[in-house]
């Protein structure tokens, strides 16, 4: 039986946590797992990969043209390696979603996006129609190229392994795309997809300034801040705050939705949260149908009260 290749998402020095969830999906398929770390001076990320228990081998590739993870260049490299593998997996993040279809097309195989379950080595479960349905699909492709929804698989352990690191040569650059800059959202708060608690605001917040009400509570709780599409479109919050069908998919222990109506496209991104709280002035808002605890009231009254209550709360 052939091995499984997991594509690491990393910033050259460290691994992104979604990589660990992807490893755990690979483990549920079964078989020897190798990890590809392609970047520029990415020894740090390769060393972190080698420590993951269950990884048999790390392939490290360093080249200037992998510095910005351009899909055009990475896909050529991965397609060249993939022939030796039965499965190639990456996280269903914007990194993986940009890259893996390109890999699949170069291999002339279909691709499976956003799997949430592994039934067998060729059969997988994935959400369709904004998560309102689940499809079980069987894939006959000789190489299964897959992106993994991280909320559906627990993160694999990150310490204890001692995999071999092998250096692999880079593929030639394709020279059709060039990195020209980035504008990353700076935040001291935990990353949205990794946070234990998330508080999100919707159109009901009324303005970007009023997001401050959420941020203050987020800081009390050590939470991340998210947003609905309407709030992002209105400019209340940056695009990378968007939760939903086409934004981030999260499943924190506690999700607090404030001034969010609960459209299916929003629920698609948070309905697997353990506890859901909704604060909305409209008693009939659909968000209440999935909330464990709801407050029907004006958020401009409720949020300051919530802040005050949390302030009084003794440490757990």
């Amino acid at each position: 039986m052939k091995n499984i290749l997991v594509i690491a998402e990393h910033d050259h020095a460290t691994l992104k946590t979604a990589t660990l969830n992807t490893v755990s999906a690979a483990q549920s398929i079964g078989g020897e797992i190798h990890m590809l770390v392609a970047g520029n001076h990415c020894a740090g990320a390769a060393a972190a990969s080698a420590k993951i228990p269950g990884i048999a081998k790390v392939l490290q590739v360093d080249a200037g043209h992998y510095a910005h993870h351009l899909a055009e260049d990475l896909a050529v490299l991965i397609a060249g390696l993939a022939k030796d593998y039965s499965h190639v997996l990456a996280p269903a993040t914007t990194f993986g979603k940009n890259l893996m279809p390109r890999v699949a097309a170069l291999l002339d195989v279909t691709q499976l996006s956003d799997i949430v379950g592994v039934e067998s080595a060729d059969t997988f479960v994935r959400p369709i129609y904004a998560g309102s349905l689940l499809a079980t699909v069987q894939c006959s492709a000789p190489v299964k190229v897959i992106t993994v929804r991280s909320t559906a698989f627990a993160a694999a352990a990150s310490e204890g392994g001692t995999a071999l690191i092998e250096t692999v040569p880079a593929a030639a650059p394709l020279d059709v795309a060039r990195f020209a800059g980035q504008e990353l959202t700076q935040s001291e708060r935990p990353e949205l997809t990794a946070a234990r608690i998330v508080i999100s605001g919707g159109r009901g917040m009324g303005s970007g300034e009023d997001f401050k009400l959420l941020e203050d509570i987020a800081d009390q709780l050590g939470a991340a801040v998210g947003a609905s599409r309407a709030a992002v479109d209105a400019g209340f919050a940056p695009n990378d705050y968007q939760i939903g069908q086409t934004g981030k998919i999260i499943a924190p222990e506690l999700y607090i939705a404030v001034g969010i109506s609960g459209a299916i496209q929003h629920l698609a991104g948070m309905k697997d949260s353990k506890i859901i709280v909704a604060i909305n002035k409209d008693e009939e808002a659909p968000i209440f149908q999935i909330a464990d605890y709801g407050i029907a009231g004006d958020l401009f009254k409720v949020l300051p009260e919530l802040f005050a209550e949390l302030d009084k709360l003794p440490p757990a």
Partner: protein
Amino acid sequence: MKILVTVKRVADYNVKVYPKADGSGVEIANVKMSMNPFDEIAVEEAVRLKESGKATEIIAASIGVSPCQEVLRTALAMGADRAILVETGAAPEPLMVAKLLKALVEREQPDLVILGKQAIDDDCNQTGQMLAALLGWGQGAFASKLTIPGGQEIEVTREIDGGLETLMLKLPAVVTADLRLNEPRYVKLPNIIKAKKKLLTTLSPGDLDVVLATQLTTLKVTEPPKREAGIKVADAAELVAKLRNDAKVI
């Protein structure tokens, strides 16, 4: 500059869909169908490029059953110049769509192909990236801004998990439209009437020398477990008490 833009016919984003009674697929008979919302954004962007003098011709393409003509007519009413339907049975897998589009690209020689980032039925988010790979072109996936400084390159700002990223792509190139690229216009009645006279060509996969194949079989479609509504609490004090003592999450 010539632009090819793709439009998929999907169940309208406002309707709730159900599994077929035998669980073999999705029940879409009698469901309201519309243009995939991301494709409206793609068409809008192409039309704006034409209005600003950057583009000269816009061709809209759809792949699927004969009623896909409706979404092509909508694209024509928005401002596309002509349309091509590649008639197949139910919409094929993204890899097959990408192969058919590649053949169309070879026929029509566009400088830019704009697709939606994702079809809201299959939620695959694959076709644009696959097409770019098959053509060996650069890809600007999940675009929220697009500028064409000269005639050789295109600047694409992409929505990524950490924020925004900007790429320069050599032309010809593939772009997939994200939600914030633009706000699609409403189609006006006179334009709907005008669109009826625009050219809509129908081709078969055979005309494009593409043999359709499938590598995915849907074994079953189910509804995910339903989440039950909980309780309403009176105020913030009660909420905090519940979260601390019952749910134990704070």
